């Protein structure tokens, strides 16, 4: 893969997350019944930031869970290498909650679809929102995000890399080009 450009730097990532946190609070009319669920891997780091930002703005720490969607993928009969099954931990009752699902990039929509199934298997939230740092288009399913950090038109041969301090040592969003086969 070859590097093309940096889309967001650390400050821009912080501002985007700050805006999303404000939008979530506004849409939910406060922190009542609010919770965040991060999708592996970078969605978890982003969800942690949003929980902290909401606490800073509203003085309330809302619950957070983590979700692995591997067992809900729709391509398990087709893939070559097996994805590792990672931890799912939702240490609170989802019933009646307003859940913000958090992922780094929204692309085909298949991860979000799997995450919805995985979440609904664990309880019956009142409302599920989707928050992503980058929406890069090319949806294959009727899914849209409620909160978007950056809308980024891309081609399918491009790769959007979200980096976080927790996972990669820095906060950034980068655009890469896949090598031609």
């Amino acid at each position, binding site marked *: 893969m070859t590097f093309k450009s940096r889309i967001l730097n650390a400050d821009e990532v912080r501002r985007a997350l700050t805006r999303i946190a404000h939008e979530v609070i506004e849409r939910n009319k406060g922190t009542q019944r609010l919770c965040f669920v991060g999708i592996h891997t970078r969605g978890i780091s982003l969800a942690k930031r949003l929980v902290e930002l909401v606490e800073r703005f509203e003085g309330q720490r809302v619950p957070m869970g983590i979700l692995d969607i591997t067992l809900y993928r729709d391509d398990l009969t087709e893939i*070559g*290498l*097996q994805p590792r*099954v990672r931890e799912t931990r939702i240490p609170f009752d989802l019933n009646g909650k307003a859940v913000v699902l958090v992922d780094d990039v929204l692309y085909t929509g298949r991860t979000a679809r799997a995450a919805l199934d995985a979440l609904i298997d*664990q309880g019956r939230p009142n409302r599920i929102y989707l928050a992503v740092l980058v929406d890069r288009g090319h949806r294959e399913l009727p899914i849209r995000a409620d909160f978007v950090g950056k809308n980024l038109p891309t081609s399918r041969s491009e790769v959007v890399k979200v980096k976080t301090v927790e996972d990669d040592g820095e906060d950034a969003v980068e655009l890469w080009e896949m090598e031609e086969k």
Partner: protein
Amino acid sequence: MSEPSPPSFPKHLLDFKDWNRAQLESLLETAQMMQEVLARPVKKVPALSGFTVATVFFEPSTRTRISFELAARRMSADVVSFVSSASSTVKGETHRDTLRTLDQMGIDAYILRTDAAGVPHQAHRWLRKPVINAGDGWRAHPTQALLDAFTLRERLGSLEGKKIAIVGDILHSRVARSNAELLPMLGACVVACGPSTLLPGHLPGVRLTTNLREALEEADAVMALRLQKERMDRGLLPSLPEYIAGYQITEARLAWAKPEAPLLHPGPMNRDVEIEGTLADSPRSLVERQVANGQAVRMAVLYHVLVGKR
């Protein structure tokens, strides 16, 4: 993207010959994740939706079969079950013909239990489909060994350098053989102990001894095996009291092992034969934990053996 890619896995589990340590560790980690699924109010995930799995048991075993079938159902696979006493093998059909017949019905994977060693290997060649060995003769019972390893790791952490004593009828035990194969692959030192008539000539990678004290001393865990009473009819044991006097795991003898060393048993247990009855219910005993873990481990085995390009 930057995560290490997981290892690829053999499309069968006959014994551990085609598996390496990284694959086995990864499988045990997956089993850990399956525990979370089993702790939910709705214990079901869609991972194996569309797969049809057959449990084919030419030798009866209710609990292993139920454990496998529940594991498959919790992964959303369709399950059919073939028990030989209730079907055509009593009418003289060979194992091969039975399996071929089932294969015409679109089975994706087989879970096989046979009284003869090697049938799962042959079935794997006949069918060219994933085969999971649920016990063949005295040879292997890999999912039992995996759930034992999982239960041991849950209590002891890494098995690297840990001493595990297996006590009882080693000679006729597929559980002992599979553990003797698996546990050293995970870094453990295995000592197998029993009366000389119930020990094999040798077991690769395992120390054999007739001295119970030597086996238990400094052991991090002790595994007692079921003593099959029919062994006495064949003259391999002089009497039950004699076996008990020499090899029963009692509270006093368990004191030879490390202070917190847990006790395992693959079941079904003969209380007061291979294991002192009260000890089986003590906090040292992991027998019930083994059964509970069996399901999570079998879900992980099904995941790794089945998922991927067919």
